């Protein structure tokens, strides 16, 4: 398994043909208290960079983009009842959705953990 990060503060964990997507600890910290999450429906076809999910904090609504192209396998149903999981466990239980990996070459442009940390430190 390998975990990648985007400049939009999403993480993507690839396990074989499937990937799990969420937002990073840095992102949840910036958003503040999350009150609602809208995850994509199973079967939705997503192009890399497309709007995939919406996260609403007390402050504002933010879009979450598909970091790669693929088809949605599952949204995290737990976020409906418990959206604050995004704050308490952003990079584990607070995952947003799982999707197929349509084109593995799209992973090449993403950051690893060290590169993402350096990216955040530079903000």
């Amino acid at each position, binding site marked *: 398994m390998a975990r990648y990060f985007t400049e939009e503060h999403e993480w993507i964990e690839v396990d074989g043909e499937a990937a799990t997507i969420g937002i990073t600890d840095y992102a949840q910290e910036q958003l503040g208290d999350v009150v609602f999450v*809208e995850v994509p429906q199973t079967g939705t076809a997503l192009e890399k960079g497309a709007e995939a999910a919406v996260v609403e904090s007390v402050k*504002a609504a933010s879009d979450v983009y598909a970091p790669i192209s693929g088809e949605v396998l599952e949204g995290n149903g737990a976020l409906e009842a418990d959206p604050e999981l995004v704050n308490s466990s952003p990079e584990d239980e607070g995952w947003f959705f799982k999707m197929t990996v349509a084109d593995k070459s799209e992973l090449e442009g993403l950051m690893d953990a060290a590169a993402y940390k350096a990216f955040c430190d530079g903000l």
Partner: protein
Amino acid sequence: MSDSEPEFEEQPPEKLPLDAWHRAQGARMVPFAGYEMPIQYNGEHGGIVAEHNWTRTSASLFDVSHMGQLAISGENAAHELEKLVPGAIANLGEGKMRYTLLLTEGGGIIDDLIVTHAGERLALVVNGACKWDDIAHLREHLPDAITLTHYEDFALLALQGPKAAEVLESLIPGVDELSFMTAAAFTWDGIDLWISRAGYTGEDGFEIALPEGDAERLANALVADERVQPAGLGARDSLRLEAGLPLYGHDLSLETDPVSAGLAFAVSKARRETGGYFGYQTCMERLAEGGCAQMRVGLSLEGRLPAREGAEVFAAAAKVGTLTSGGFSPTLGHPVAMAYIDTAHTAPGTTLEVEVRGKRLPATVTTLPFVPHKYHRKGA
């Protein structure tokens, strides 16, 4: 991930007198009203919801030094100001405060403000984002003999919450004798303070004006009390929304008038007979039966999905209004909003729908405030 409603500022923002203090307290600073302002603080008690709840149960310290602190003085200052506002100013007793509105000749709202009879002068507290326009408007329309002073080197701290009075009384004996919407001069540790029992959270509380160089000393003394935590703009916004209090630039604008805005209480009863102020004609037309095409009302939403400013409101297929403020209410646990709605649909209990990202959410017209005010009124 990115904010769908980015904010940007044309000018580089200015720093508040307490800028370094906020950063040391763990504030996240954002541009607002031309200043870098703390939106929320880090740490155990930090975050918008935690700061909000702390204000509703204990006491929070807000820095509102971005607001304009003005004063007018001179012969007939109160009568001259009355030509620009619908409120009764000339009959204000010393130390009494009044919420009123600067209106255009056509009745549009230039700003909302608090006027205090402060002895020799009338003190005005206006919105930070409006203060330069307000000053220009006042200077243009007040006679030259009226002196207008801008206290640019003064800070304004707000201590808000059910424990605000006991905290401040322990530091500055006598402040608890103030009742809601009254003000007086005090001294603390050699500093001259002007303290008002007022605020914009719906809670009991105080606003303290003092020289900016002394603000840090007082802020430190206040947060040294374990009942007090600093709170930022984020909580200030959710608190005022629950309290049903309009925010200029969102719920009030040049396109709105006092009556449509649900602020008819600010149109003085006595002055409805006599008139003689900007916007009088519009106020009278709006006050007449059926005079308002739309009114500002509260909307309560079910579920958890907040509806934000700009969202459209429907009665069946017909669009009947637009949200001017909206968010999640930490106290109530569901989203609330303020909206301008066609008057036929403004009766409390009316069921409407708000559209958010193509989804229709049920919303019920609700009497404001959403959360009852807890002001310390005289005799209470």
